[in-house]
């Protein structure tokens, strides 16, 4: 073990040096006055197009509206359970609040199709046919739109650097190709995590990582790893990862929100 430790330390030093060298080389190549590429031009992958949800997990909870009080696997605190137990869809309908389950924190788990486009060079637009909702993801600036069901979403391309620099050519390095679209959504109008009134509050913060996964010889998937932190109603972060399959426009069928 001692020998292994010494050897490991030596290699760690070499690795760090290699990493630093390669990293410096990577930064030094661009002319000083060249403007950075726009988020659209710098996209790590093509997220645009139509995607359809594959509801293969929490199937009954997502395809059908569960009974009141059925909040299995959602880490609700006592206040959250209390609110969920008072769910009244008729009341929502009367108040014109049929879209409470279609807010940003619940929308991506609704069985829906997505249509993602670039609204401009700095803004992605995500539309759903279920509930006919629109989310916008703003890159490089403070997002607008707070106080709505879709809240305000700040986007960035999340490209982690490899932690390791291999001394062997073409065996990894500091710059990793690929990465995620990271979206942080705040200032949401309170809504439902599930259609049966499982609540999230205006204080909820949702962080999403959109990853495009191309199955070798097969289809393209969009996996949205999602963390929702809500100090008002949740005891711990609520993690889910709804996934979508790339499709064409056929089947796009906008519908209104339903409360039941």
């Amino acid at each position: 073990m001692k020998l292994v430790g010494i050897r490991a330390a030596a290699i760690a030093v070499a690795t760090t040096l290699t990493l630093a060298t390669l990293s410096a080389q990577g930064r030094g190549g661009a002319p000083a006055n060249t403007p950075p590429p726009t988020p659209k031009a710098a996209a790590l992958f093509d997220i645009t197009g139509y995607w359809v949800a594959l509801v293969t997990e929490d199937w009954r909870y997502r395809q059908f509206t569960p009974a009141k009080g059925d909040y299995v696997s959602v880490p609700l605190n006592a206040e959250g359970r209390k609110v969920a137990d008072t769910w009244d869809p008729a009341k929502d309908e009367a108040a014109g609040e049929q879209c409470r389950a279609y807010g940003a924190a619940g929308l991506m788990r609704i069985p829906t199709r997505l249509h993602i486009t670039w609204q401009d060079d700095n803004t992605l637009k995500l539309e759903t046919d279920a509930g006919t909702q629109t989310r916008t993801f703003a890159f490089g600036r403070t997002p607008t739109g707070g106080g709505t069901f879709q809240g305000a979403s700040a986007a960035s391309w999340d490209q982690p650097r490899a932690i390791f620099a291999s001394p062997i050519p073409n065996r990894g390095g500091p710059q990793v190709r690929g990465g995620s679209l990271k979206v942080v959504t705040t200032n949401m109008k309170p809504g439902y995590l599930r259609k049966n009134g499982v609540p999230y509050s205006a204080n909820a913060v949702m962080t999403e990582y959109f990853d495009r996964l191309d199955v070798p010889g097969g289809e393209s998937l969009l996996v949205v790893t999602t963390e929702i932190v809500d100090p008002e109603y949740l005891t711990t972060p609520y993690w889910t990862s709804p996934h979508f399959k790339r499709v064409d426009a056929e089947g796009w069928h906008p519908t209104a929100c339903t409360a039941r």
Partner: protein
Amino acid sequence: MTVFRNFGRLGFGIWALGFGICFTTLLAQGQTSQPAPAPAAAAADAPSGPAIDLSGYWTPTMNEDGMERGGGSELHDYGGFPLNEAGRLWALSYDPSRVTLRHHQCDAYVTPYQMERDPHTQRLVAIHWWAQVTEGHRVIWMDGRPHPPAWAPHTFRGFSTGKFVGTALVVTTTHLKQGWLRRNGTPESDQATVTEFFVRHGDHLTNTTVVSDPVFLTEPVVRSNDYYRAPVDHGTWLYACDDSEQIVGRAPDVVPHYDFGKQPYAREYSERHKLPLGVAWTGAASMLPGYADAAKTMTDAQGTALLSPAPGRPNETSKAVDPEPRDGEIHVLPIRANVYMLVGDGGNIVVQTGDQGAFVVDTGTGRLSEKVIAAIDKLSERPIQFIANTSFLSDRTGGNGKLAAAGMDPSLPGSFFVNSAPRAVTGLFADPNRHATIMAHNNVTNRMQDAKIPDEAVPGDTYLEERRRKSHNGDSIEMFYEPNAVTDGDSIVFFRRADVIVAGNIVDLTRYPMIDPKNGGSVEGEIKALNDILNRTNYEHEGEGGTYVVPGHGFLADEHEVVEYRDMMVIVRDRVKAMVAAGATLAQVKAARLTADYDTRYGSNTGPWTTDMFVEAVYNSLKPAPKTN
């Protein structure tokens, strides 16, 4: 396994410093349980360095499918799985009591379900993976090696290769055993392949699993699982399992299952959740948006119809990969110690080598005998001394003549057998120095002589009752007679020290067993023979490994494949028996499609052994004997 486990725990530092390839080499040398080809010359894009650090301890978040990952899924809830008819019927026929059977008690979880189920995933160190539930140990090969051939063994973890694509570790897994996609009997076949993506976001790990299964699914099913990084060792890795009697006195041919249309709890799920009967059984449609609206119109009659095979449809056929190489070559798969499986001549051949000369079990069809002999010559310095036949069928005995002629039996010259029973008398022991001795049950010899097979290909060393034994090359070899199984002359051959059973056509992983009532075969004898094999097998760990079983056709098996085959045989027998008892005709039995949940794995509508022929054989061996005055 201990060695692997220790390397795994030491391996964190090694991996963290980029020594994954070195670590892979160590594992490759240690891996013996699943023979794999040597690593190919490194393909340009195959080996990949570490793009992200996945090492450490990970715990599932359990925020999705909490029931499934915790207490257990509800019976008959298959919603969101693109099951085909066979998959749906297999699941509906599944009785959870099946896990009380001795040979199912320690079944491990297959890789896709392990990821779904496992509450604690052990540190992922390069290609080395250890999970708590059923001690799921995986090796993900990163060196670009190809996957094993179709005739190599299958395991619960399968054979996995991986590479980094961008920030994702992409893993491809083949050679899985039959298992579950869900713990309520939603099946996954041994023909499934899996693509996994591991993506890390800070201290969160997302595992996306794409399962393709031509036997039970109409399209791939995509699942995703979330884990968070645990700062310390969970410390609960052991999951030792021993089987035992769960129901004392139960007959060995009982396999809990439900007959089509008679599932007693079929309505439970829909009634509990106030959903139409069958909404969770519609396969791929249930995954998509808009399904809830469509399901609202589903009638009780439509749901009830899903409990049974659709009437009037032709039988489905096997979607399994053909394990025969069909390249005109003989391929050698080392099984264990000095025992090998030879593949390529239309039926699996087993060779044991040693100082006393090769001991061969079955000789294939005979079309490639010269190449079989050449392959044996490479394995054995001594010529073939003994050939054992598990049956008289031509795919077991077709090469007898040539292989026997290539061998010699030095124990015979000058012995009582040759001196008192020369060829002129028996025709069987002539020229022992230029002829191996062929052994089989006496009925094999009778059948072959009746068929006018040349004497030199006919077994001369026969036995009549339950057992023939021989000590050879340091192993105790036993032949056990299995009366009235596929035919009336079947034997299994057990290499006790090597722990290898040669099952012949009693186990045929490419099709239903070719039960031949006209030559003494019977469904009851086949079931008894399968149980006799299971009475002699042992598993090494969590229901797999241990005793290897060489089927007549198909990949090298262990007891898990045999017990699944036995279950199939018992279930089909019970269904046919119930219809026979109700007075059904053969045509009615065939029309009922009683094998519908197995046809996509074993069925055929053409060739020498069709599903209809199998059903007819089962029917004929169960129908009452005609009354005689």
